[in-house]
């Protein structure tokens, strides 16, 4: 249905540019499996994205916001003491230092600016951990837009600090009761609301999944992570890393950093999903590790589901990864073998969280701690000279309460 300009998006992946001209497909994945009523608004969004994303003024406006509002570029930091625990050289891409405390602001600034260029005045968004909700509430305030955030009731309870911050920024937070009260249910209700309000509302989607053109748009606005990391690696280390590791829920921080290295064939790319209690227990959110291809939220992708196609509720200590599907481009990267996808379980994630706090004084988000946890498990398998970049996609202040619940600490603990 959509006409694509021949230039394609600036993403360094020629194979995927090719696929995008076919209805937002990444191989057979992606597409736009949505009710008819949403087709015109997705067409409008796609048209606007391709009209503005290379527009000189738009690019200049976004670059200024990235620098002055979000705090880009984010540092590439050599985590020396943490490296000793892993047994190789670990660098952290410090997206946790961005305004709002996560990579999410890259995307909300980009889409928010797009909404502004389109003349939209109302935005809605879904959120799991609340990081995307917060990043949307921030730019809603920045651009003076009426902002509604859909959030599962379970997530509202476990991420109450972020809920409070969203409200402080003037957003309305709408609790979603359905299902398990997590990200999946928030997306369901955001889509339902959008269906009834397509004429004046911009849906600011938070991850590199959902219907076309979102996987493409979100990736585009997250590519600065990968571009910067690649340049910083060459500048600081003098060479490319041997491995890049990122956590994967929907997959936006991961696709952002992977995009910088996917053409560098010698760089190993690893995505770490939420293993929850354990993958074998069924209580997890490791979609690429344990899922089967299906259709949810507008896209064909790996999906955690039963034999008849009913979507499973997921479980993870980290609300931001608690999602039963995954971005379509990750599905293709898995199938082609260009990236490998693994899982880290809650307990080892909590260990990794504590370790980074204690040896670097950095509180990582529980989402990002999945990447750290998997890396710690590689101890002994890695050459000491190996260079690994971990995308530290967010900071863990929001998770302190959850960690306290799982690992209670007495005040006089040494």
């Amino acid at each position: 249905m959509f006409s694509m300009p021949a230039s394609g998006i600036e993403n360094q992946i020629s194979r995927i540019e090719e696929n995008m001209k076919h209805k937002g497909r990444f191989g057979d994945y992606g597409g736009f499996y949505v009710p008819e009523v949403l087709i015109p608004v997705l067409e409008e969004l796609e048209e606007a994205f391709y009209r503005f994303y290379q527009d000189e003024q738009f690019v200049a406006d976004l670059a200024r916001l990235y620098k002055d509002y979000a705090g880009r570029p984010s540092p590439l930091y050599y985590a020396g003491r943490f490296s000793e625990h892993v047994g190789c050289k670990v660098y952290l891409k410090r997206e946790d230092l961005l305004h709002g405390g996560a990579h999410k602001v890259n995307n909300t600034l980009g889409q928010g600016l797009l909404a502004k260029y389109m003349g939209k005045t109302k935005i809605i968004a879904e959120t799991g951990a609340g990081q995307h909700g917060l990043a949307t509430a921030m730019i809603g305030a920045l651009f003076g837009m009426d902002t509604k955030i859909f959030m599962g009731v379970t997530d509202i309870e476990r991420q109450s600090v972020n809920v409070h911050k969203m409200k402080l920024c003037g957003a309305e937070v709408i609790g979603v009761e359905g299902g398990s009260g997590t990200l999946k249910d928030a997306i369901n209700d955001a889509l339902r609301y959008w269906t009834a309000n397509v004429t004046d509302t911009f849906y600011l989607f938070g991850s590199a999944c959902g219907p076309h053109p979102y996987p493409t748009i979100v990736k585009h606005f997250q590519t600065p992570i990968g571009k910067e990391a690649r340049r910083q690696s060459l500048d600081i280390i003098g060479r490319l890393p041997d491995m890049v590791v990122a956590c994967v829920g929907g997959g936006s921080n991961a696709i952002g950093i992977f995009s910088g290295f996917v053409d560098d064939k010698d760089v190993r790319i690893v995505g770490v999903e939420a293993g929850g209690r354990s993958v074998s227990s069924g209580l997890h959110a490791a979609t690429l590790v344990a899922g089967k291809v299906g259709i949810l939220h507008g896209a064909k992708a790996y999906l955690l589901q039963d034999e008849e196609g009913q979507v499973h509720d997921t479980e993870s200590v980290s609300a931001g990864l608690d999602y039963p599907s995954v971005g379509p481009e990750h599905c293709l990267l898995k199938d082609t073998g260009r990236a490998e996808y693994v899982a880290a379980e809650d307990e080892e994630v909590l260990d990794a969280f504590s370790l980074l706090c204690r040896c670097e004084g950095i509180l990582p988000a529980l989402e990002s701690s999945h990447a750290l946890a998997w890396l710690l498990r590689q101890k002994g398998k890695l050459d000491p000279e190996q260079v690994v970049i971990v995308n530290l996609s967010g900071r863990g202040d929001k998770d302190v309460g959850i960690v306290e619940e799982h690992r209670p600490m007495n005040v006089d603990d040494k």
Partner: protein
Amino acid sequence: MKTYKQVFAELAQAGRSALIPFFVVGDPDFDTSLEVVKTAIDAGADILELGIAFSDPIADGPTIQKADIRAARAGMTMARALDFIRQVKAHKDVPIGLLMYYNLIYQYGIERFFADFHEAGVNSVLVADLSIDDVGEIEEPAKAAGLDTVFMVTPVTAPDRMKLIASKTTGFIYTVSVLGVTGSRDNLSDTVQDLVSELKKLTDVPVCVGFGISKPEHAAAIASAGADGIIIGSKVVGLIEANLQNKEKMLSEIATFLTEVKTAISAG
């Protein structure tokens, strides 16, 4: 097996629109659901729209979502849905349109799905989250199985796209009366009448209207605007929800309501 073509031809002669109630198969349980559907047929349903419960029904409002949950909890499966449809057809040969979410079809196996459900007595399958752009994924197997096609048109569908949709439709066009998900509304906007007349100019394919119709007078107004059928879902599903503890009342309220609508759309 009775076809849409036969039903719409008979109705055209009688000068009235089709009464098309929607239910979720197995809501609130298999046996009660079967009684509900039989009651609707006896009250004058000309065509049935049936849904199979899905975990994430993004095109549905709270009433149908809750029906999906009731049916799923009561143990609805694809195999039991087939059995249900066979039992409905044994009661009376009324055309049945399924309203589905794509993942259930995809996991069942597209070809096998259309073949099995047509064999059980289904006339068409409308996939809520599969637009005309991707119809290629199901068109051949649906045709091969002998099914008619039903697609949606909404108040924001562009005229060229309406023509494309009409050209692909062999059953009827499911016209969405309002922007949004399924659910009863107190008032319906006038745009639906305009939409119906616009469609009637574009195509000879029957045009049925659904979403939000909750009163006999809504149905009458839409019928007099030229609609060939009136689809009523959330209102009747809500009567199931309201009477979960009293089956007799549930059945009699559904029968009474559908009879009122039938009278209202026959008068014009």
